[in-house]
């Protein structure tokens, strides 16, 4: 209980900083900030699945694609309010996540990772096949585009709401069941945790988060949902973010999101190499370096710091 006060205080501080930040920034930087929020939501979703329930997914780009296309198609065909489409994306991806979670019950570890990877590879191919409705490689253009400030505000508002939602889910009965499954499935079952229910549920929630992130991602690319935007690289970026965050720490997620959201931009401005592909070199090197220095991510760093502060 004592730990609550500083946690709430720091959450409030971060919220205030994030709320004030856009007023001093150019449109470009606001869009960048919105991108960080998008990654934050996606990584948060992955963390619920991987960090708290112990199921690996390399396929969250697929759920983002589903969410993004939901938004774009709804907006194109029905001129639906964009915030409303995010709610729909949340629901659609929740159902998709449950559907993926069911077969995932049979798989674990590396096999699950590769099955979800297959998902990430396969989903962006679907619009190419059904191009009359889903626009083929040209993509789907939503009927409305949004300003950078709108995007920043909505993205971080969504991030805040989902953060609180994740916290509420994880602190109670459901979160305990998730952690029990992660630590030992056998022990969890023996204590009465219904394994199929909670594992599928974790997939659903996680996918729903990714769906909202996908909606925001599409809005961030001028309302264009394109297959090429949702390639494997996106899934890998989310995974990198989750690894930098470290598993099972909600605060680490923020650092992970900043890492994958901002680093490609920063490294592209490194004058050292000065070529279009120099940024890949820098980004790749940094990813490796961070993992070598912090193999358990920021969460591991926090733990070590906490242990230093309170040697028991």
């Amino acid at each position, binding site marked *: 209980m004592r730990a609550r006060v500083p946690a709430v205080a720091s959450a409030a501080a971060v919220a205030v900083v994030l709320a004030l930040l856009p007023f001093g920034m150019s449109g470009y930087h606001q869009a960048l900030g919105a991108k960080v929020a998008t990654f934050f939501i996606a990584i948060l979703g992955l963390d619920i699945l991987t960090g708290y329930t112990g199921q690996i997914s390399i396929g969250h780009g697929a759920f983002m694609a589903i969410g993004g296309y939901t938004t774009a198609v709804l907006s194109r065909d029905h001129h639906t309010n964009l915030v409303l489409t995010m709610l729909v994306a949340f629901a659609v991806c929740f159902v998709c996540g449950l559907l993926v979670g069911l077969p995932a019950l049979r798989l674990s570890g590396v096999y699950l990772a590769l099955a979800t990877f297959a998902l990430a590879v396969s989903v962006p191919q679907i619009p190419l096949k059904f191009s009359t409705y889903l626009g083929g490689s040209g993509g789907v253009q939503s009927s409305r585009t949004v300003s950078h400030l709108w995007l920043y505000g909505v993205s971080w508002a969504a991030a805040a709401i989902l953060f609180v939602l994740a916290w509420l889910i994880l602190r109670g009965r459901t979160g305990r069941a998730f952690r029990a499954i992660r630590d030992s499935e056998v022990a969890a079952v023996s204590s009465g945790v219904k394994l199929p229910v909670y594992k599928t549920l974790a997939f659903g929630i996680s996918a729903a988060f990714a769906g909202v992130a996908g909606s925001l991602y599409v809005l961030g690319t001028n309302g264009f949902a394109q297959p090429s935007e949702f390639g494997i690289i996106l899934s890998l970026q989310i*995974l990198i973010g989750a690894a930098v965050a470290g598993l099972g720490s909600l605060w680490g997620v923020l650092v992970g999101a900043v890492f994958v959201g901002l680093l490609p931009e920063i490294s592209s401005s490194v004058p050292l190499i000065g070529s279009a592909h*120099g940024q*890949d070199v820098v980004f790749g090197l940094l*990813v490796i370096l961070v993992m070598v220095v912090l193999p358990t991510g920021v969460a591991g760093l926090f733990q070590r710091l906490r242990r230093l502060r309170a040697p028991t």
Partner: protein
Amino acid sequence: MVELARKLALPERRLPASPVLVVLLGSCVFLVIGCLQSTIFAQQTVAGLAQGAVYGSLALALVLIYRATEVINFAQGEMAMASVYIAYQLIQWGFSYWEAFAVTLAVAFVLGIAIQVAVIRPVQHKSVIAVVIVTVGLFILIDGLVNWKWGGAIRFMPAPFGGRVYHAGGVAFARQDLGTLVVTIASVMLLWALFQFTKLGLGMRAAALRPAAASLVGVRVNRMLAVGWGLAAVLGAVAGLMAEPSQFVLQPTLMQPILLYAFAAAVLGGLESPAGAVVGGLALGIFLNLIGQYVHFVTSELRLPFAFAVLLAVLLVKPTGLFGHGKVRKV
């Protein structure tokens, strides 16, 4: 030491479960009958075998690393692609194709070891996910380096086998398909012999299966793991060099689709099983070619999703792949 290590490496030879054998034999019979019935079928099967051999050897590289390091090496395809660029550069400098081939394999071996020592070993025992992310980082890094050095533009390499076509019983066999098949199968067999009949191979098997016990009987586990990465890189380089002529052009995205098929092949065979990887690769190659020929709904966009759908179906029936075995755990 050799005797002890041999005991450690024992649980190596296990046949797949009998239903799997029945299915495999059944599909072989089906393929043979089909080839005798129709020349198109036979042609597609041979072309599929050649492609499948490439998938299989890259899948085998993945399996080697998986057994030694317990991670999927996402950078395997990019390492192979970089090797092809090295070969390209050597040919530009005036080497003949096969000289360049040999030198490239040697360079790939050294680079594989260097990667293991420099970036994999420091994270090896700390967290599985960290190792995976390091390989993802390598993927991005190697991709960036190749794009930086050679650019993304299309390059051309001389064809290793020429464009000749043989005819046998009304069936046309491309020399290139046959050559690809021979080279990849030969390299897989050589590797198998290395693992099965040499002291080095024995040490590597022991180190991969029981690292702690192996180091107690005097196997240099770390060195063995590094050599394993080197060999995987060599195998990947062979796969890359053999994949290049069938794509006709060389560009940095060369191995990305092939890596995905190799993933599928490795999982199909069961990630623990080298034989499974090769069989999985060949099966996948033939299967995709035949599907492309006879099932018109599966157009080129749907090839990859379709391959993965089949993979998923197999995994649901047998969650550890065709040749895999469920792990027995004490609780």
